[in-house]
């Protein structure tokens, strides 16, 4: 996959260094949801993880910034900033490692609980909504909010819908949500201000699995529509420890 050069207006060459207290440094590459900005976040994350500076504790990539947790009694801010600049000079290798996933999703009304409501709001048919949702390729920008929950970019414009004015009751684990122009796959039952359009039998987090967390930020993902019977069969296989999402060549 060719590396897209970031628009300097959106992603300045030099990131901003913001303080989140004396134990966390935010390296901010931009303020928008943009694959080029996220590429730079993930490249820095990969470079730092490959050779973590002494005194750093944890790196948290998000859409547009990397939060570095550190112990200021072991490494001072200025030294850390210097090491970040050094890491930024290393050519990025992360994008070459991005995996392409296909994940099963059931859109039937018992699973995509809000699909009729969303279709009405968007003035399309539920069938059209499903067709558009499965046709798109999504980028996993980040995990966030709850264990295993991933935020996806690449939702088609026709499916862009604002978040709900007020939260709806808790969804099921595995619920696929849309809202605010983005798509989310959940892993825990939670109330949400987004719309539930489907549900995957896959578990993005399973503690007993060798890879407790299935995906890496930067991976690409597509949804494959399945019926209720297939959902139940796959759910059983997942319960026995199997991974039912699969990697594709492209």
């Amino acid at each position, binding site marked *: 996959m060719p590396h897209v050069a970031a628009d300097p207006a959106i992603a300045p060459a030099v990131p901003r260094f*913001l*303080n*989140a*207290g*004396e*134990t*966390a440094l*935010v390296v*901010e590459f931009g*303020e*928008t*949801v943009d694959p080029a900005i996220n590429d730079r976040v993930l490249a820095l*994350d990969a470079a730092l993880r490959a050779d973590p500076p002494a005194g750093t*504790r*944890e*790196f*948290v*990539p*998000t*859409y*547009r*910034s990397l*939060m570095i*947790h550190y112990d*200021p*009694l072991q490494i*001072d*801010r200025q030294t850390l900033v210097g090491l970040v600049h050094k890491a930024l000079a290393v050519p990025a290798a992360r994008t070459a490692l991005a995996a392409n996933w296909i994940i099963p999703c059931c859109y039937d009304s018992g699973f995509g609980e809000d699909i009729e409501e969303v279709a009405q709001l968007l003035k399309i048919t539920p069938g059209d909504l499903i067709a558009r949702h499965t046709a798109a390729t999504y980028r996993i920008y*980040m*995990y*966030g*909010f*709850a*264990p*295993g*929950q991933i*935020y996806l970019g690449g939702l088609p414009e026709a499916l862009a819908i604002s978040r709900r004015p007020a939260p709806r009751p808790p969804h099921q684990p595995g619920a696929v949500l849309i809202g605010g122009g983005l798509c989310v796959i959940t892993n*825990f039952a939670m109330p949400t201000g987004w719309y539930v359009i489907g549900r995957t039998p896959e578990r993005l*987090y399973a*503690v007993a699995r060798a890879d*407790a*967390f299935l995906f890496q*930020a930067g991976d690409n993902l597509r949804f494959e529509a399945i019926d209720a019977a297939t959902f139940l069969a796959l759910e059983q296989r997942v319960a026995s420890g199997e991974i039912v999402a699969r990697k594709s060549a492209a």
Partner: protein
Amino acid sequence: MSSVPAQAALRVLSAGPGVTLQDAGRHGYLRYGVTAAGPMDPLAYATANLAAGNAAGSTAIEISLGGIELTAEAEPLAVALAGGDFAISLDARVLPRSSLWAAMVLTIEPGAVLNIRAGQSGAWCYLAVAGRLVVPQLLGSNATHTRTGFGGVDGRAIRTGDRLSVEPSRSSTLSFGAIAAPWLDRPPEIIRVVLGPQDDYFSAEQIAAFLEGPWRVSIKADRMAYFLDGPRLTHAKGYNIVSDGIAMGAIQVPGDGRPIVLMADRQSTGGYPKIATVIGPDLGRLAQARPGTAFRFEAVSIAEAVAARREEAAALARDLVVDPLVRTQFSSEFLLGLNLIDGVVNPIEHVKIA
């Protein structure tokens, strides 16, 4: 053939809401959306482990205002307590405090009842058992995050009837005593912050209003967040940002202009501007403030925050000082009541915090 000896344990006779197991936190998984959890008052938690002779980061019981009542099973268990000014009694005898800011070490004989409940001030108290609580870990930690069911006892808060297995420390020699911990004397009037990461979303006037306050901890205050009552803040550049990471102590300002301090159980990422971040050494100071407590924020530099942190580390690294008042404070009758036959204040082995 001898039978298997009964395993030492702490038995929970009653527990109020919000009492949980905590260790130094479940670190390394924020990148997967996993909250670190860990103690609300890291300094009091560290002090309890220190007084118990435990390694830093050992699993302890975080006691909320709900309180807890415990007994020992199978053998006597030495425990250390540190935190807010909680009322502590053993077999219905109120334990006098030599000083408000003392860690207390005591031994619970099998069947004896230790009761810890909300006292004059403070919101959290830590109980560290000398030795080790034997509880299965999740992702390398016992820290409880009840919202996702991670860690602790089956992913939940401690409740009445729970039995916590203990591997008692064999090196512990202290049966009863108070250990001065003046670093826990932290008046809540001033909470120090480092401005940012999104202070540029606020005008200079609004930053001044934020620092001027005054603020009060609202009734909505739990392990996830302390909501604040005070002036309404306004944003200069809107209140929606593209989500980024959240550190403990981050003060986010949502659309209604009412700041929220994100605490130990905060979510890993969020989309509201964060005007400032409470410095590490003042997290416990704020955590111990009950609803209604008034305070002000004071902006400090990174260098000042690090200096405060260094002071805190130095206090914990010094040898423990056994409070000399202890010997005279307690009447012989009281000590006899506790069935003590030997010295009162032999300090237990001191494990320094690295």
